[in-house]
């Protein structure tokens, strides 16, 4: 789960990281008031779950309150990489001497939280790592010991020479690790970490993603979810316990298992179609889940055909077939439905489906080709 910059700032600040003050507002008037209160130049920053806000015009420097109001009215309602801007952050502009990058994420290979720091800030760190690997320093944190003082120092010392800056940065790096672990994060980033002419080190940007599996035990973090920043269908899928990602195509996919769901999407594309979504209904034959899945798929007006691809493993195919039939009874679907069911008791299942007037088969290729064809016709 992504959280907004202003929310990540709160987590960072609670961990002790020096973060300039800021106010989240939803109207130009509020932005004006905030700018007046801070005095001087402020930064107006779109709060969306997307990188590249600056390039998209979602970050502006406002020299006075009137400008703050004007820019805010321009930014609010903007669409940044598909995300509508509904909130902006107003924060005093800082005098910047240098910009650095400090980030931590769960590294799969190291199987540990891993820091990456670079004396070049405000950059795409992945790009920096690729083009000038010597300008980053990387360190994995042993989960048995946590962040050790000399490790924070070693990272900080890669960014700065003056002992005062190094010691501030060590502290911030340790606090960032605390915020990361304490929030159940999978990624946390300060980009840029600045130094001011007065010799202070500060975080003027904040980014954090939370491990979804942590949310059950972190209600304070879970309530940071901003459902307004995602399609309604995804919110509903999550509430129904389904894995769903909306895409732009017209073949609605309903599959059991994440790998098979991806493979089904790929095959739709292979046969010249475009998948409308990723959807994993999980391993059960429970009609309620199928009902929820059908409601979600059909709420996408692009969808022209519904494709079921079910591999009956432990769950028997006849049970699944009955589940689908019962689900369809509860919801008024006008779109064509094609179903592939294979595995244990598949013959029985196909009979049940055909008896109910549904198009069914056992080959994945066959059902996908049929779905793509129906989408093209519709």
């Amino acid at each position, binding site marked *: 789960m992504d959280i907004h910059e202003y929310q990540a700032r709160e987590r960072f600040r609670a961990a002790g990281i020096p973060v300039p003050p800021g106010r989240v507002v939803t109207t130009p008037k509020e932005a004006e008031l905030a700018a007046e209160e801070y005095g001087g130049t402020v930064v107006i920053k779109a709060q969306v779950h997307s990188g590249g806000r600056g390039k998209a015009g979602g970050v502006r420097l406002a020299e006075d309150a009137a400008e703050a109001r004007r820019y805010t009215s321009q930014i609010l309602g903007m669409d940044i990489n598909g995300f509508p801007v509904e909130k902006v952050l107003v924060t005093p502009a800082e005098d910047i001497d240098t910009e650095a990058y400090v980030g931590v994420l*769960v590294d*799969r*290979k190291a*199987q*540990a*939280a891993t820091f990456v720091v670079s004396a070049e800030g405000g950059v795409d760190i*992945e790009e920096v790592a690729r083009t000038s690997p010597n300008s980053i320093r990387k360190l994995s944190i*042993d*989960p*048995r010991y946590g962040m050790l003082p000399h490790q924070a120092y070693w990272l900080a010392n890669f960014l700065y020479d003056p002992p005062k800056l190094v010691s501030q940065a060590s502290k911030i790096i340790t606090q960032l690790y605390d915020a990361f*672990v304490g929030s*159940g994060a*999978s990624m946390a980033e300060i980009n840029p970490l600045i130094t001011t002419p007065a010799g202070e080190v500060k975080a003027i940007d904040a980014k954090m993603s939370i*491990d*979804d*599996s*942590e949310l*059950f*035990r972190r209600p304070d973090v879970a309530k940071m979810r901003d459902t307004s920043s995602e399609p309604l269908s995804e919110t509903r899928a999550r509430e129904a316990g389904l*894995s769903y*990602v909306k*895409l732009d195509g017209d073949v609605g996919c309903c*599959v*059991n*298992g*994440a*790998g*098979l*769901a*991806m*493979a089904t*999407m*790929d*095959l*739709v*594309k*292979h046969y010249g179609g475009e*998948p409308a979504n*990723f959807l*994993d209904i999980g*391993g059960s034959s429970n009609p309620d889940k199928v009902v929820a899945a059908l409601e979600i798929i059909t709420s996408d007006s692009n969808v022209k055909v519904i494709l079921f691809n079910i*591999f009956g*493993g*432990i769950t028997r195919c006849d049970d699944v077939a009955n589940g689908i039939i019962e689900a369809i009874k509860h919801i008024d679907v006008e779109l064509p439905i094609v179903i592939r069911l*294979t*595995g*244990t008791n598949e013959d029985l299942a196909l009979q049940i489906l055909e008896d109910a007037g549904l198009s069914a088969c056992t*080959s*994945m*290729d066959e059902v996908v080709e049929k779905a793509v064809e129906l989408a093209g016709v519709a």
Partner: protein
Amino acid sequence: MAIFIDSDTKVVVQGITGRDGSFHTREMMAYGTRVVAGVTPGKGSQNFEGPNECTVPIFNGMDEAVSETGANTSVVYVPPAFAAGAILEAAEAGVELIVAITEGVPVLDMARAHAFARDRGVRVLGPNCPGLISPGKSKVGILPGQIVAEGPIGVVSRSGTLTYEAVFQLTTAGLGQTTCVGIGGDPLIGTNFISCLEAFEEDPETAAVVMIGEIGGTDEQEAAAYVKETMSKPVVGFIAGRTAPPGRRMGHAGAIISGSSGTAEEKIRVFEENGISVAIRPADIVGLLQGALA
């Protein structure tokens, strides 16, 4: 022969009295797996009723379960909040293999649990995996026993039903399996592709391997380099997620393209560069395998 589990494998089921645990314990026993013990704290000294009037003793803790029954493998069906703790307990109790089925275990919990298991030289499979099956010998986890057959193909995959899909096609085409291993869809897993490839390479009965990957991470890329450098047996690959958008998690916690890395294109390219034939459709796997074995 087979890898990781065979007919000597003695399994203790952690969370045996739960909904999933009890269901799959019966499935495992019906398949012929030697389930020797179950663990549910507070239910020690009860018995679990398996199929065919077989019963399995339940213990309060892994320590006792292992010392009383000589179990060498555990399978974890406990809920996410307690799964990492169950893995730690199993590792401390001294089993050799822990198969962690549970999905949704916090990643930082797993970082610790994996370190703990590594400290003790214990293999963890998963979490968020379907387990593994050595056809005709033993199954540990949730893989459906009826779709497999004995034979010379090793299968290793990050996915569940996609593996069933592939395995079912193999079985239907007469290509049985030595062992089918689901390594799990989480970002931090205990046993990766390379570990499985090593084991298949050493297993005299495995003639060829099917490796099914997906978007996210670089495990497939490293495995591909390993295949080229070390493996004598043919490997056929498949990668799911060519149409997955970057930055979105596709079901599995680990199936996410971060920045520009971990795309299906990259993995397919690296597979091909390292001599692994890549099936574009799942249905192509059988043909490529038959070609490689011919």
